[in-house]
């Protein structure tokens, strides 16, 4: 079975698994995990990049062939997200940016409205913008108009490992939005990543689960395999789940009672 690769803003990715780089216990675990999962697109919070200290600079631990996706963690409104993105670009981190606008430090839910505003500005400036949102159809449509390169709906609370609590809403985006849908946040196990891919998501991003696992690199690899398996299942024309046993026709079987048996 052949698959078309994931294409974002004209760039082709053979891996559909994105890795976040926060919360790792050391830089070696991080680089081992990136290599183990084969991710080609890795997110880094600009706030965590220390450009002056080579040993501590997270960028020194990310292989050079990987596309860097700087996120705007810490931005509380569109204006701050725009400033962080521009600063990232000026610091040599490229023009791929994951917009995170979060004005709630308790639940860390993204502010969709401000995210749309930041996307409009940055896309117009030539950034490749991957906005992180609470899954909402109107927001996603506005992001398409604003020039987003993908839409990244959350599966559940960031860092919660709770999986696809927003499954039905993500399915709506998969059905209706013609941009790559990358499920982000809350994906805590490979089975959950596979589930998102089986639904037709184009890619999955995970971070906390991998970073906090006892063996990060092994779990990173497991995630990559699960994403691949989920993608294959989706392409296979996976039969839908049945809510009940379907062996007979309890409601309409009577229609055929008088027909002669073959």
């Amino acid at each position, binding site marked *: 079975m052949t698959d078309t690769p994931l294409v974002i803003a004209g760039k082709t990715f053979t891996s559909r698994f994105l890795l976040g780089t926060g919360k790792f*216990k050391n830089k070696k675990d991080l680089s081992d995990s990136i290599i183990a999962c084969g991710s080609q697109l890795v997110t880094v919070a600009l706030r965590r990049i220390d450009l002056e200290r080579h040993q*501590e600079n997270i960028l020194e631990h990310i292989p050079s062939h990987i596309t860097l996706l700087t996120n705007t963690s810490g931005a509380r409104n569109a204006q701050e997200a725009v400033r962080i993105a521009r*600063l990232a670009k000026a610091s040599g981190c490229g023009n791929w940016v994951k917009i995170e606008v979060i004005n709630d430090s308790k639940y860390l839910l993204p502010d969709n409205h401000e995210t749309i505003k930041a996307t409009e500005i940055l896309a117009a400036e030539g950034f490749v913008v991957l906005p992180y949102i609470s899954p909402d159809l109107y927001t996603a449509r506005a992001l398409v108009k604003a020039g987003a390169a993908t839409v990244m709906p959350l599966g559940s609370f960031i860092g919660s490992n709770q999986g696809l609590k927003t499954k039905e809403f993500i399915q709506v985006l998969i059905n209706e939005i013609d941009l790559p849908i990358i499920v982000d946040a809350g994906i805590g196990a490979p089975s959950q990543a596979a589930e998102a891919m089986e639904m037709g998501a184009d890619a999955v991003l995970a971070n906390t689960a991998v970073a906090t696992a006892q063996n990060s690199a092994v779990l990173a690899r497991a995630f990559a395999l699960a994403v691949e398996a989920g993608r294959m299942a989706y392409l296979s024309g996976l039969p839908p789940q049945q809510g009940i046993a379907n062996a007979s026709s309890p409601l309409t079987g009577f229609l055929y009672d008088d027909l002669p048996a073959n």
Partner: protein
Amino acid sequence: MMTFQQIKNILNDKSPKSVEELAYRAAQTTRQYFGRAISLYGPLYLSNFCSSHCTYCGFNSHNKIQRMKLEPEEYRREMQFLHTQGIRNILMLTGESYKHTPVSYLKESALIASEYFQGIALEVCPMETSEYKELFAAGVDGITVYQETYDRARYAQVHLSGYKKDYDFRCATPLRAAQAGMRQVSLGILLGLSDVVNDVYALYQQLSELEKSFPGVEYGVSFPRLRTVKTASLATCDVDDVQFVKIIALTRLLFPRVAISLSTREAPKLRDHLLEIGITRISAGSNTSVGGYTLLEEKAQDPQFDIKDDRSVNQIVQLLKAKNFDPVFTDWRHIENSL
């Protein structure tokens, strides 16, 4: 939020089993929300002029110590020293004196600090919202203010004069800082000043209200234990290590995303163990004297409090790495602040 009685029951149950269970749950929560990242910051004392008379503090206005205020070229040297140590988040502190360290002085020090540091926080006398707005625009991202105790009667007993005497103005300080747009607001109580359960419960209530009113702020808490400097002990309610561990653990469970910092007042052994349980932010290479890093000989220094942990920044980093923690120097990139 737990009820007062629930919190009291938890903090007063000192059975090893209950302490371990609470610590275990807190450790799991900390790892889930923060991983093994520990943020490091460096304190920089700009001035010890103080108009308040707080009976437990080494800087209080009645203490005969050498009063100093660093001039720009002096604190620049101190900043350069901290910067070469690797520090990127700075907490600048002063005694409580509008006269000696007015907003204009703090703004200038923030502007110079922004040449060296990515995150700038202040622990200075409480101010008006408009003043915090000015400081925010000058690059200050965080305000730390400790209520010390929520027991009004005790508060009045230990805060005898000066700005700090005004309980209500001080208590509303975190709110004003949040209103002004600050990214980080840190609260704290001085354990041992008054009844611990009452104070911890009141702190939790204030934190919950702030989280609702200003959800975009990153909150932090700290629980310094009362230590004395060149004065007699004032502790009325000694908080032992067991209860201290429970306070840290319970705070983590009730406020999973809140930063909990630990000062150099605590001994290294306890400090190291608390990192596993719930601490996410520590000071490193700290000196609590004005000019203590580069300007004064050690014997000439009058610290605000005695430090129990005098390990260098590099030693702290090596220790964190040996314990599988990731020392985080940069947790913010300085951007232009505007409302």
